[in-house]
């Protein structure tokens, strides 16, 4: 029983971080039709920024939102100065499809190199602000600890804010319209290029939260050569694809499915199989249902 509960809790807390990553990918995909591989580097950068802010302010609860704002600003900067120029100058032919992807991969490499240059190639430590010792019920110790519970709660709160933003505000309507039909949005008076930058900014904030929460919920060690966030990006991408790549609720559902399946594999079969299973899941999905579970021909409302 407690093993089952552990599986469930491991699944949910992994899913909450996957969902942030998946949302970042979906938002960038919807606004510019680019899969942003640099998101992994941006999450790692945010972990470093979180580390710096915590060591300067001594307060994680200030550092987290500040790092999210900086993550948003960095992402918007990339869209405005790199992607925009790129899309403008390579609007036709096969290069137009490939250039943005190569650019995000190149940026990923640049970020890793710059991080190593600034912080060195050893680990730095971002301490968790809450205990990571699991709660005990009777004489069993559960997997979930105060830190993990905060991660789940914080992500749920973020998802709530994002839902309100997209479904209930004018900005949200402009974001959705620009994603689904940029020309109609433009003809309706929406300044689509600004909205595109805003989409990247929200993605950057979600990615920054993913980077920091993943770090404090894990070992706390940050290393410029770590591939941890590249794996996280792959999981986020799989979650986004399960949800159809266009849909925010779909991305969250995909993250839940992925998190629970992988937790099941990890607890009942073997931790070493996790990545293989995730990969098989992605392949099966791309073959059987390439539009995702929530993706349809016209996509979803959010």
């Amino acid at each position: 029983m407690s093993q089952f509960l552990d599986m469930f809790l491991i699944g949910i807390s992994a899913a909450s971080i996957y969902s942030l990553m998946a949302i970042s990918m979906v938002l960038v995909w919807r606004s510019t039709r680019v899969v942003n591989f640099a998101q992994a580097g941006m999450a790692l950068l945010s972990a470093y920024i979180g580390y710096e802010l915590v060591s300067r302010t001594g307060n994680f609860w200030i550092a987290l939102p500040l790092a999210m704002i900086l993550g948003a600003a960095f992402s918007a900067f990339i869209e405005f100065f790199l992607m925009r120029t790129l899309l403008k100058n390579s609007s036709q032919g096969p290069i137009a499809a490939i250039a943005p992807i190569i650019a995000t991969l190149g940026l990923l490499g640049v970020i890793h190199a710059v991080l190593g240059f600034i912080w060195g190639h050893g680990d730095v430590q971002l301490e968790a602000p809450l205990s990571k010792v699991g709660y005990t019920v009777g004489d069993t110790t559960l997997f979930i600890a105060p830190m993990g519970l905060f991660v789940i709660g914080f992500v749920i709160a973020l998802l709530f804010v994002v839902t309100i933003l997209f479904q209930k505000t004018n900005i949200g309507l402009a974001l959705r319209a620009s994603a689904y039909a940029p020309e109609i949005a433009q003809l309706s008076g929406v300044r689509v290029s600004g909205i595109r930058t805003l989409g990247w900014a929200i993605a950057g904030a979600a990615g920054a939260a993913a980077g920091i929460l993943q770090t404090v919920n894990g070992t706390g060690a940050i290393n410029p050569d770590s591939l941890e966030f590249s794996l996280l990006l792959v999981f986020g991408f799989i979650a986004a694809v399960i949800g159809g790549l266009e849909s925010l609720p779909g991305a969250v559902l995909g993250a839940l499915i992925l998190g629970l399946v992988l937790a099941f594999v990890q607890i009942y079969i073997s931790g070493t199989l996790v990545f293989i299973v995730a990969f098989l899941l992605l392949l099966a999905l791309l073959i059987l249902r390439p539009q995702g579970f929530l993706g349809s021909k016209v996509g979803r409302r959010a």
Partner: protein
Amino acid sequence: MLRINGLTVSHGAIRALDSVSFSVEQGGLTAVIGSNGAGKTTLMRTLSGLKSADSGSATWNDHNLLHGKPEHHVRQGISHVSEGKSVIPQLTVEENLDLGALWRRNPSEAKASKAEVFELFPRLEERRAQQADTLSGGERQMLAISRAYMARPQLLLLDEPSLGLAPLVIEQIFQSIRHIVDSMGVTVVLVEQNAMGALKIADFGVVLNLGKIAVSGAASDLIADPAVRTAYLGF
């Protein structure tokens, strides 16, 4: 007043409009007719800022239409309903309408426009919470026109609103367009392949042929002109 002078527009090597000149008085309904490939859509897309021109000029009152993006022109009172059912299927009917008024800073004015739209097309009010992809073709066209109307345009550019619709529905859409001109004081440029239907409700007519103006004049004169009848109206 809409003034178009020597307007020339190309798609790469293809010259779609060749030195087109005509003007449209404030407050009327002008039909632009011509067969497939005549350059009608290109004309509309150029006027709304989606397509850039090679040379010539186009102004609405004092506003230069050949400079700036569509989102800029909308704010100057020019709205364009592009060819095909120009609605966003993933949004609800009401969200499509709200989208049209998004840039307007005064919510109570936007609300008033919505009330006018619902009065003109009660069907849209009944379906306001439905996703737009559940609408029929005619309802989608009503929604597309209404979305543009929500921007409170002075000049409304409509590209083939009758495309793919049944005759009865076309009749209803055309009547609504006439109503928008007469009761709401909007100047409309209506592009149509359905030449006879469009000329019947129009005040003026412009016939485009292979990117050039073939004839223009009062709609009733065009209908009566034997040359126009045989060449463009098919009888």
